[in-house]
């Protein structure tokens, strides 16, 4: 009797274990199906179409409430995104997926430094927006439209934001260093010439609050200067000219000079160490495309909110900006195109600026109240829309090439940063060009 109950009990235990295990597995499966983040889940989820976006950095569509709004307008659509922190980690797999034409999401973002390469090598894998209903070429800045258009007139991506560059500075630190704090006056200090900005840096250093630097990083200054040049790394015919272009060398020299004088902190942008310098308010000035305000916001402690202001850069320039593409191999191509067209329409771009400070690539948005009246947590009550709009209009139409990103990263991250480590300008330049050439050499 005893023995029997024991086996019966054991059987019951085993059964219970199996049952709970099975239930767990089933629950696991159900979980996967319900919250379909996987790109392959096209039409699942109760008759709803799930559109998937591959994004990088802080693009902020979700934060700006744009997904929710579109889902409300289109009850049959569900939107899910997959955000990778840095473009450096996002782009190589994207390119790999494009060349093999598999594993792509419905919508894929492409950074401006990569768009030329995508346009020239992967256009056949992407859908053409120029023929999509409701997409009006005239809504975009001409050059923004042209950047995503192939020679034979296929437009493979729609522009979201651009990066008209201004200068952000800390009002409190400027005041302590005896510099003006009014945006107009500050802008006037260096109007027209980046070298004047470095001079202001020297003034700042003389009375600087202890432990602070004038600028955050050599790379940031270099990118600001180069972004205001019409030709940087490629000439109009597509030849690589970064080594012979006097403007690039001059920008490198000026940055190296600022580094030698101890005006810029020895940091590489977007690294944990650099993030901490934001959190600890260790620098007073930064080359500032609108999206940089988002980076400042993400890394700042609450007490530095409202202490920043935006002034005109010495010369208007552009740094950054993104496109959205729809791969042909996606499962919901038509719906994805519709969504991208909606997401990049002037109205939505203006909303994005209001929330995320990503500056519109559609000029008609520049006069919308969302832009003209926009204030940012970091810059207090200063209306920043007008300054960035001015910068966007004065920015040169830049020649971009397929390997812009490699050249830019090489100059800043493997080049001018070395000056802060005690290398001479010439040594830093040699190191940078050697690295870049090695990466360009097929």
């Amino acid at each position: 009797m005893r023995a029997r109950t024991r086996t019966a009990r054991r059987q019951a235990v085993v059964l219970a274990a199996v049952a709970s295990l099975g239930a767990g597995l089933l629950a696991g499966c159900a979980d996967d199906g319900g919250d379909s983040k996987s790109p392959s889940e096209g039409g699942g989820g109760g008759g709803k179409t799930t559109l998937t976006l591959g994004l990088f950095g802080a693009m902020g569509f979700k934060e700006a409430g744009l997904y929710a709004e579109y889902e409300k307008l289109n009850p049959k659509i569900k939107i899910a995104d997959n955000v990778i922190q840095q473009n450096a980690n996002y782009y190589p797999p994207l390119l790999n997926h494009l060349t093999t034409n598999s594993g792509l999401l419905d919508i894929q973002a492409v950074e401006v430094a990569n768009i030329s390469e995508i346009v020239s090598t992967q256009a056949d894998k992407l859908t053409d927006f120029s023929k999509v209903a409701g997409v009006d070429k005239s809504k975009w800045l001409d050059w923004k439209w042209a950047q995503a258009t192939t020679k034979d007139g296929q437009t493979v991506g729609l522009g979201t934001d651009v990066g008209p560059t201004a200068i952000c500075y800390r009002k409190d630190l400027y005041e302590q260093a005896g510099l003006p704090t009014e945006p107009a006056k500050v802008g006037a200090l260096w109007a027209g010439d980046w070298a004047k900005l470095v001079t202001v840096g020297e003034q700042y250093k003389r009375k600087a609050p202890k432990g602070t630097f004038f600028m955050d990083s050599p790379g940031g200054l270099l990118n600001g200067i180069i972004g205001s040049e019409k030709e940087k790394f490629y000439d109009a015919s597509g030849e690589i000219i970064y080594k012979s272009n006097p403007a690039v060398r001059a920008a490198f020299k000026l940055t190296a000079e600022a580094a030698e004088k101890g005006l810029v902190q020895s940091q590489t942008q977007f690294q944990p160490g650099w993030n901490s310098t934001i959190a600890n308010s260790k620098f007073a000035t930064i080359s500032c495309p609108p999206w940089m305000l988002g980076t400042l916001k993400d890394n700042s402690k609450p007490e530095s909110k409202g202490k920043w202001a935006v002034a005109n850069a010495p010369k208007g320039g552009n740094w950054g900006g993104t496109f959205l593409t729809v791969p042909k191999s996606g499962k919901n191509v038509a719906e994805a195109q519709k969504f991208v067209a909606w997401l990049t329409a002037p109205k939505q771009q203006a909303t994005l600026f209001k929330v995320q400070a990503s500056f519109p690539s559609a000029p008609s948005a520049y006069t919308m109240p969302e832009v003209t009246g926009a204030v940012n947590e970091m810059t207090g009550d200063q209306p920043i829309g007008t300054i960035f709009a001015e910068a966007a209009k004065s920015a040169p139409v830049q020649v971009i090439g397929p390997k812009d990103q490699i050249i830019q990263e090489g100059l800043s991250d493997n080049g001018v940063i070395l000056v802060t480590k005690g290398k001479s300008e010439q040594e830093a330049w040699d190191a940078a060009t050697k690295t870049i050439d090695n990466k360009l050499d097929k």
Partner: protein
Amino acid sequence: MTTRHDTAVPPVKEGGTAPGRSPEDVSPAAEKKRARLSRRWQRDIRWSPYAFVSPFFLLFVAFGMFPLLYTGWASLHQVELTAPTDMNWVGLRNYTRIFDDEFFWNAAKNTLTIGIISTVPQLMMAMGIAHLLNYKLRASTFFRVAMLAPYATSIAAASLVFVLLFGRDYGMINWALDTVGISPVDWQNDKWPSQIAVSSIIVWRWTGYNALIYLAAMQAIPHDLYESAALDGASRWKQFIHVTLPALRPTILFTVVVSTIGASQVFGEPLLFDANKGTSGGAEHQFQTLGLYLYEQGWVAQHLGRASAIAWTMFLMLIVIGIINYVISRRLRASS
């Protein structure tokens, strides 16, 4: 084997034959059938082992062999990631240029130095820890499991924590150094500090793993060896030197080989130690390993041909290392 053969012959189902096997009862048809079944059985016994092991080999051919050969083929071409089917024959050029590619040799040197400053302390510490764990102590299972915790942690998580610890301006290690009066070290941008920092991630992750391997080997050493050594008046240290170490020789050799191979492929730790530009291994490539350089050429610069040549060169270097290991191990075995 033979008996199994007999009993496994399937019984004849129809035809009214008596059980057992009396050949005269068997009709020609049944005979044929049996012969057929028997042949099938023969084939089965001959070929099914191959079928059972085939999944591995098929997968190996698909995911090991093919990429290996394809990489070799690609290494003879100029081919870009943007158009992998568009190959341009260049012969051995991708190999010959490696000889004067200073980035390759820099990476090779870094791989070697990082390999040494991670493997040597790692194995020595593992040995020490294993020796301590081999004593009777309370909650020994807990300690043994705890040893494996770093190994079970993902490289990514561990490296990101180490990056914060090794931060130049706000890192905990520099803060600790500062409190004892040592000026802060730029762990990321200076050559040796950055290599030491990267090595420390590797040491942290793998020491416990090796310690457990040593511990397992130590427990196989007969206890009476220690007892008689103790009777002879050998101290604990003497016991370790004269009993434990000799008995562990094959295990040590195994861990050395495995660690060497691991060290020559170091990738994740240096990649994540430089969270932003990753593949260049620091501003001056001061901790760029061969694995990183390969990845940089292939996936950042998008030169598949060059990357393939680097991969094959690394492969050949590993074979050389393997041969050296083999020679040394034979010498050791001969001497013991």
